């Protein structure tokens, strides 16, 4: 039973289509990454999952049931745009938000202290939110989504704006939660984060699904046709026929091989021309897969829309 299931979901705001025919499933206990560039419909999809907006068509199922507000206390949500009451004390704030999620005041306060301890912001507990740094505020918001021990944790861009130490701290926390059996969904436009953390992903672009499935399956669909090499000397071997495209950064080259090409042949050629300090054959990164997919799609769209324009002219 998938814990979240979107079926053919569409949502438009006035004239702008935010999400179109989006379907995906999140299995219980998985770490799910919702990926896409800015403005691709990540936040719109998330808002529909928690009932802030309702899809124009299609359906959203949570915990195996059609969407129902009474299931919302089982969800923890961290919105992309952080919002806390500025003048309120941290502990009062956490207690209030915990109570809104169905906790009683004592439990909420107790858990808030425990979490603040864990995320190393215990000294901020008695302060007003406006006195805190942005990173600290983000941690507090993070805690507020977790106080009621939700089964499903939804986080919209949870690591944006954090320094590496704090980003790692929160990542580790999410990994812990997932090991406790919670389901975690987070959205990000930073694909490199996802590669480490997620076991399932969904890539969207302009409200369309581009790619979805298990991380391993997706990667295995793409052959190891990338070569990363570091060299000194003559770079004329980069014109080798097995190379489809190359990015040459003065001694560091990122190469994409033609289908069926052998990396060994390239290496043999390179050795005769330059001094190789590193030669690595790799799977494409998520980012590369994404860019490839999106470019292919937008080319297709461009062709289609040109066709329409031409057709209109004929009719007129």
């Amino acid at each position, binding site marked *: 039973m998938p814990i979240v299931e979107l079926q053919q979901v569409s949502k438009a*705001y006035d004239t702008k289509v935010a999400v179109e025919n989006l379907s995906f499933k999140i299995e219980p206990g998985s770490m799910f990454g919702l990926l896409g560039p800015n403005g691709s419909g990540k936040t719109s999809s998330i808002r529909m999952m928690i*009932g802030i907006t309702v899809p124009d068509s299609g359906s959203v199922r949570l915990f195996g049931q059609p969407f129902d*507000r009474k299931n*919302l206390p089982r969800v923890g949500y961290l*919105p992309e745009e952080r*919002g806390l009451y500025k003048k309120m004390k941290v502990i009062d704030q956490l207690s209030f938000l915990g109570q*809104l999620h169905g906790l009683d005041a004592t439990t909420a306060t107790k858990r808030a202290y425990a979490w603040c301890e864990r995320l190393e912001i215990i000294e901020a507990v008695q302060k007003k939110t406006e006195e805190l740094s942005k990173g600290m505020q983000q941690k507090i918001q993070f805690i507020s989504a977790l106080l009621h021990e939700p089964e499903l944790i939804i986080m919209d861009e949870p690591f944006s704006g954090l320094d590496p130490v704090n980003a790692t701290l929160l990542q580790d926390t999410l990994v812990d939660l997932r090991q406790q059996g919670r389901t975690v969904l987070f959205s990000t436009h930073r694909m490199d984060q996802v590669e480490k953390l997620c076991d399932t992903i969904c890539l969207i672009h302009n409200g369309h699904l581009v790619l979805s499935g298990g991380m391993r399956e997706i990667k295995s669909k793409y052959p190891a046709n990338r070569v990363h090499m570091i060299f000194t000397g003559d770079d004329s071997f980069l014109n080798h026929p097995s190379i489809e495209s190359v990015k040459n950064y003065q001694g560091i080259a990122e190469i994409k091989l033609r289908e069926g090409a052998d990396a060994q042949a390239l290496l043999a050629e390179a050795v005769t021309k330059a001094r190789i300090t590193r030669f690595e054959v790799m799977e494409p990164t998520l980012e590369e897969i994404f860019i490839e997919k999106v470019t292919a799609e937008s080319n297709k769209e461009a062709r289609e829309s040109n066709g329409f324009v031409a057709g209109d002219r004929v009719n007129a």
Partner: protein
Amino acid sequence: MHNVWLIAKREYLERVRTKAFLISTLLIPILMVGGIVGSLVLGHKTKPTSHIAVVSPDQQLAVDLQSELQNGKDSRMTVEVISPGNSETRATLDSMLVDKQLDGYLWITPAADSSQRPSFSYTPRSAADMVNRDAVRTALRNVIVRERLAHQGMVASDVDALMQPVKVDTTQAGRIADSASSLVAVGVLFVLMYMVILLYGMNVARSIIEEKSSRVFEVLLATIRPEEMMAGKVIGVGAVGLTQVAVWLITAILLTGSSLMGALAGGKVQVSLSAMQIIFFVTYFLLGYLLYSSIAAALGAMVNSEQELQQLNMLLVMPLAGCFFAMAPVMTNPSGLLARVLSIFPFCAPLIMYLRISLSTPPVWEIALSIVLMIATIYAVLWVASRIYRVGILMYGKRPSLPEIMRWLKYS
């Protein structure tokens, strides 16, 4: 309901704890006490105790004036009589003014014809000295009237009797004119509602705008409905206003004693009706307050900044002002068609229906209908506001036009 309570509680506690609330709540009672103490102190001081001189060729007039100014009802002055003055008197008096030995002098020049009044010229030391001038003027009038009356052959005791101030017994007011006391109550209700709505209704709108700009709503909306949030805000912020008004009213009642209490209770005189009136007063005040706060909430949901709100706050006060103009025709005919329609119309009901209840006895069903309609309107306004709010927050940046708002209502 639990969520509404939580939101209201947070809103109330956070606002009551602020220094601004504490200061404004205490400042008004302090001003009231200060005002009363101040006016008592000043009241004693206003009897002029200055030292002036009267120059008059007519000895009798000067002496009468002297006794009036020294022992009169309103003044305790020290008066020198110079009668008659000679050519150097004016120069001497002027130099005494400069030396601050005198506060002023009055120069009386007799009229050529004895039937005419003499002419008076008062020279004060300071041009701003109005207290002495008024005292002198009053004393002069008294003296001249006495003199004239005596001249006409009236006995001194008769003159004294005639000069006694008229006493009007005000304690009887309201005993017969029952519409007058209910009018006072309606007036108090009107002022109270107007004031409270102006002062606090806008706070509801502001608090909703604040929530939008701090972006807290997104976390809240992930667990609660916008309707619950709106209702919680209206109740929470509203309770803050009521607390403050209650503190002020209680202070005022304690300070001024039972007279204000009488006015508030719609005249203590009719005991049987006044209990009912108090109940209706509280009911209609609370419902009216809630209704107007809900409209404020809707306005807050519609706009994105305080400046935009300023442009719309007319909408909040206009129906109330309309009621004010409708009060006169309703009073002359409390059971007329206009009165009956207006008293059921929810935005006017709190004032007009209360006015009708005070003046006559409207049918129970009309009272019930007005209350039911008001509650329904409050609910409807909150529902619309929450719709506007939910859609509005997702497309912030510009103020929606009316057709857009209509379209939003269809979204869910």
